[in-house]
């Protein structure tokens, strides 16, 4: 049987690289689910809140907050503008929006209509949920500002800063939002801090949790919180001899710390002041089985696209896939190694 070894090795290397890239993304996604989220808002845990930053990013957090309220730009799912504004968000999985009820609430010194909604997984089997969603959206529509159907994938809101919809709205609401609050402020604005916990107010006024990030269009946005969450990133994939590896890292330096203290290891391993909330290592271990199963496929396909070798041939050798778990300055270098056979079975099972 003729074997084009070079072709085969190139195909396997490409497949290996792809597998490691996919594996790193799996770890990243799981780590971002597990990472602790500081509760900045009185609303549900895990909510990611964005300020739309019309004003310059050099403004202080408090100035920014007031400017955001004045200009009618807002937070995810929260209106602060002079006009009525409702927002809701769904992802492509077809989640439904289920209003939980409407109540009169006092936000700071202002009275506001608060509509609590919950976004759950879609499904046509639950007739009750579908009914509530359909009726309530119609019923709670204020000023005809929502356009689009209830189960539309492209909700559009008409806000004081213009029409927002589609991807922009999804970005605005944030990916992790599972609960959205809609507030009708009766023509008046109120301060963001009224919606925050005491911890959130401290983070806001000190500016510690306020940071600037670029969206996918390169536009800078002021964001509150999520520094550690967003720092969890996969590296490039490297090759060194027979090894192909990459790593997922996390790093979050307090901008006001004089010692450039990185609190990612504090979360991972604990400190004298706080207990540990591990997120990287559990993500790696919980993802291991998924990574192994997704890794075998591309490599075996690469093999099958070429000539299937005998196990005694030179190309039937182990490939070491190493998912390295490290970052610069991280106190615990952690490595997991997965060894795969490039053939369809280990040599002991071959001829």
């Amino acid at each position, binding site marked *: 049987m003729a074997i084009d070894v070079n072709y085969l090795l190139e195909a396997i290397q490409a497949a290996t690289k792809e597998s490691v890239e996919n594996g790193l993304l799996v770890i990243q996604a799981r780590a971002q689910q597990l990472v602790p989220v500081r509760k900045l808002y009185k609303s549900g845990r895990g909510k990611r809140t964005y300020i739309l930053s019309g004003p310059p990013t050099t403004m202080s957090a408090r100035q920014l907050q007031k400017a955001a309220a004045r200009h009618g730009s807002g937070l995810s799912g929260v209106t602060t503008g002079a006009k009525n504004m409702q927002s809701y968000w769904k992802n492509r999985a077809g989640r439904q929006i289920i209003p939980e009820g409407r109540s009169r609430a006092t936000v700071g010194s202002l009275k506001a209509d608060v509509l609590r909604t919950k976004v759950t997984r879609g499904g046509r089997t639950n007739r009750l949920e579908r009914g509530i969603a359909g009726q309530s959206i119609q019923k709670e529509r204020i000023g005809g500002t929502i356009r689009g159907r209830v189960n539309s994938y492209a909700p559009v809101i008409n806000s004081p800063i213009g029409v927002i919809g589609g991807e922009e709205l999804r970005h605005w609401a944030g990916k992790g939002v599972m609960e959205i609050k809609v507030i009708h402020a009766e023509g008046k604005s109120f301060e963001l801090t009224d919606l925050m916990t005491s911890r959130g107010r401290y983070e806001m006024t000190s500016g510690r949790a306020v940071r600037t990030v670029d969206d996918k269009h390169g536009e800078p946005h002021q964001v509150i919180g999520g520094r550690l969450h967003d720092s969890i990133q996969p590296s490039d994939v490297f090759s060194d001899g027979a090894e192909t590896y990459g790593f997922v890292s996390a790093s979050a330096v307090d901008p006001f710390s004089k010692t450039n203290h990185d609190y990612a290891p504090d979360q991972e391993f604990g400190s*004298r*002041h706080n207990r540990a909330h591990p997120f990287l290592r559990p993500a790696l271990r919980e993802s291991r089985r998924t990574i192994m199963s997704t890794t075998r496929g591309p490599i075996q396909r690469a093999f099958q696209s070429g000539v299937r070798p005998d196990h005694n041939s030179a190309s039937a050798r182990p490939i070491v896939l190493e998912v390295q778990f490290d970052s610069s300055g991280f*106190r615990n270098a952690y490595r997991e190694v997965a060894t795969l056979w490039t053939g369809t079975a280990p040599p002991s099972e071959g001829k």
Partner: protein
Amino acid sequence: MRTTSTAIKRGVVRHARSDVPLKTAIVGGIHEGFAPEKVRYPFMVYNLVVAPYADLWGSRVIVALVDMLSFAENGVDASNVDQLILNAFDGAQLSVDGQTTLICRRISDIPGGPEIDSEGKKIYQIGGSYEIWTDQSL
């Protein structure tokens, strides 16, 4: 009776208490996750990081990852306690309710720099991660 990772944590504490040199050295005792403010140094903290299950034919393997850290007012004491923890746990046969310990070994160090506690004292935190494999019948 099937047991969970709680039995592993219990086994860890039981083993640490049964090791006389270690128990004598950790004046402040053994704490899960976090020690209160007024605890005396040195003391030991353990934390279960993750414990995924793997069901095989007829048995269940739990691979638990446990961080064990020593806290002391100077680096030497912290290192000494860490060494005692290593002596006690690396290769040990833990007694885990309802499970058989297959492996208990240290897989990584967790070196930590000194930090300041609530009373302004410099505190050293040194330890390691231990992997504990247990098996139980299904």
